[in-house]
């Protein structure tokens, strides 16, 4: 499995590069601490050492040598389960828009790590509201637009920021995948699926030939088919941005045929086919609660996250992709809106912390305040969801990366 070992090697290199600078010992004390690993703690204390959470509990005594910081409310660092910031920039000019390469409909070989700008102002903007982890990368708008990555919202270069260099491969179904250019494909839904299936079959055959061929007789390397190989092996889920119920069912059909791990993204009409989604065991990264209800999202509901969750489907929330103004949304606010439309406070918070971590497969490292996990924390001066509260501090791996009152 030459392909697999190479993907793993890449991941390992990135994790080593993300290695921590020297951290001091800090203690974060919150009037309320939502650990997301049990009931909320009153007078909770989080002890942080070497970038990791050392200990958490109510009324803990702070040992000598720990710098103490206080806040009304402390939560795990927020996780934006799907964005494009870092590939898309706030200027919205051609030079800072790298989320979509329109030259071909299927380009899974495009790596997010080759395009991510950790110093993009929108990354700092999200960090200022307590967002510490983002799942970002190639955007919607092509049948297969490229890879995504998971990063911390800090670091001067991509290697310092990255958590998972190849998180998923991004695809779009429905009208967003179609081209209107004369003589070009895909021009219809059915053609898009035919193209996608043909490419996945090619990737299956390629993998099998590379493995079984005699030395020296292997097919030429194909970055494209290797990237799809990672999807076929289940190493990288297929992230499918899709809104209409019939297109969601199509995504499930293709995923079942090729036994790929599927994550549904957007999913405006998911409430119509929730039984099928639950049976398939697929997670949904629901569109922003305040997304615009136009075109394929015209039937979106602000209660979708709640409806899916009640149906036993794992949901996370996202800031999504914005082509104009605002250039990004903020998951904190989208969760707040979802908390007004059917989710409880803690369910909405879970959708941008521990549940988002589970959907992204990084729950062993982030998403809750538990000993051994990364010391990623968000500090607020009141109910984090309140329009008039502020994020007063963001901590990533034990380092205070944002202060003030945002």
């Amino acid at each position, binding site marked *: 499995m030459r392909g697999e070992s190479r993907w793993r090697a890449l991941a390992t290199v990135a994790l080593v590069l993300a290695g921590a600078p020297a951290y001091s010992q800090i203690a974060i004390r919150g009037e309320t601490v939502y650990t997301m690993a049990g009931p909320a703690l009153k007078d909770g204390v989080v002890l942080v050492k070497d970038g990791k959470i050392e200990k958490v509990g109510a009324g803990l005594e702070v040992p000598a040598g720990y710098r103490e910081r206080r806040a009304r409310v402390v939560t795990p660092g927020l996780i934006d389960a799907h964005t494009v910031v870092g590939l898309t920039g*706030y200027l*919205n000019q051609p030079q800072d828009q790298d989320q979509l390469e329109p030259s071909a409909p299927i380009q899974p070989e495009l790596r997010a790590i080759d395009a991510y700008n950790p110093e993009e102002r929108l990354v700092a903007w999200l960090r200022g509201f307590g967002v510490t982890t983002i799942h970002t990368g190639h955007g919607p708008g092509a049948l297969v637009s490229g890879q995504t990555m998971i990063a911390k919202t800090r670091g001067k270069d991509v290697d310092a920021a990255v958590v998972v260099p190849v998180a998923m491969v991004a695809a779009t179904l429905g009208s967003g995948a179609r081209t209107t250019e004369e003589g070009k494909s895909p021009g219809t839904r059915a053609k898009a699926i035919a193209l996608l299936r043909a490419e996945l079959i090619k990737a299956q055959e390629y993998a099998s030939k590379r493995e079984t061929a005699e030395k020296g007789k292997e097919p030429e390397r194909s970055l494209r088919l290797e990237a799809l190989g990672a999807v076929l092996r289940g190493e990288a889920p297929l992230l499918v941005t899709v809104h209409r119920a019939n297109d969601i069912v199509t995504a499930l059909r293709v995923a079942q045929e090729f036994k790929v791990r599927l994550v549904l993204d957007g999913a405006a009409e998911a409430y119509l086919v929730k039984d099928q989604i639950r049976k398939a065991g697929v997670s949904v990264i629901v569109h922003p609660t305040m997304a615009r209800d136009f075109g394929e999202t015209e039937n979106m509901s602000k209660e979708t996250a709640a409806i899916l969750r009640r149906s036993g489907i794992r949901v996370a929330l996202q800031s999504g992709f914005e082509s104009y103004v605002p250039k990004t949304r*903020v998951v904190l606010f989208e969760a707040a809106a979802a908390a007004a439309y059917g989710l409880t406070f803690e369910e909405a918070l879970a959708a941008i912390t521990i549940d988002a971590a589970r959907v992204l497969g990084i729950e062993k490292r982030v998403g809750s305040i538990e000993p051994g996990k990364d010391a990623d924390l968000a500090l607020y001066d009141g109910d984090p969801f309140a329009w008039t509260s502020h994020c007063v501090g963001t901590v990533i791996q034990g380092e205070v990366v944002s202060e003030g009152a945002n």
Partner: protein
Amino acid sequence: MTVLAAAFALAAPLAVAQEKPQAFLGARIIPITGPEIGNGVLVVHGGKIVSVGPEGTRIPEGAVRVDLSGKVLMPGLVDTHSHVGSVEGADASAPLQPDVRALDAIDVRDPRLLKARAGGITTVNVMPGSGHLLSGQTVYLKLREGSVVEDLLLPNPKTGLLGGMKMANGTNSRRKPPFPGTRAKSAALVREQYVKAQEYRQKIKDAGDDPKKLPARDLGMEGLLEVMDGKRMVHHHTHRHDDIVTVLRLQKEFGFRVTLHHVSEAWKVADEIAAAGVACSIINVDSPGGKLETMDLAWKTGAVLEKAGVLVGFHTDDPITESRFFLRSAGLAVRAGMSREKALYGLTQAGAIILDLEDRIGSLAPGKDADFLVLSGDPLDYRTHVLETWVEGAKVFDLSREKDRLYAVGGYGAGHGQPPSAHLCGDFEDEEQGR
């Protein structure tokens, strides 16, 4: 009710003000132009507010009493800048088109307009877009139930005019000729039109009593004269601080009345705006950028303008922000330092002043239109829902009605407007379901 009877009902709007006075009791009332009332009484009759006061306020004999204990009551929201109603304005033929009326392009069954009602908006300035230096005459709508745009009009009581004039500068209106390619050219094209209008006026004056000497009627010039005479407010899209100052410069030269809209960088020139005595209508979006002129957009704009003494209203710019989250715009302004009082004022009375309708709407005061909202909680609490929207004493939105809830929350069908018969035959439909 038979279909035939339903057809006869076409003559009268469905939601009409009750014949009898109505008294709303027990709510916390936020009148805007007076202090909040803990356990208040609002009396309305004939579409107007009769009285607003504390517990014990006189309730007329025979009034229908409505218990609103635990609820919050405030004036209907005034959105000073929106694109609901599938509005269109100028076309691509010229950068300034003062002859074009939004009035002639409104679909009152547009789902976005129904969603605005669900968001608590009762009065809205519907504008053409910002891709022109001047994209047309705007129209002020009262979100009554109605089957044609005429049912929703809100003429100015003094002038009879139906709206303002939409103008823009900065980058949106920079395009290929005949549109301007630079900021200086933009200003030159605008000045040229206003000079023409001055000359047109002179010709009318010179004609004296002789109709034969009158210039040929020019719809665009007529529109600009209304602007220069102060009868028609200019609603001016402008973002960058230098563009804001350019608007003030032209305003001084030609004497039109103007409200500055969006004003992403107003926080840089707040004193200049205050000195010019013009109002601002602001929008709060969730991040800066998206285009070059909003790079420095900041939520503190409301607070900075308030401190400088500028009248501050809000707008949705729907679909830029969503009508159902209009209250949130004020919430974000408070987050960045604006006072709660001025933020709520900005959603209501300030908007009324900006639309020259402050004698009629914007606050809960005797004699004003009975436009109000029943809220489940504080208007600036993220968990609060608009439960009911009332316009001129008639309930036009009720979250407990399934068909209204669809437009409030979303779901299958929310992207489509009401079919032409649906709202007119609403009672008929309800009866059908009840059988």
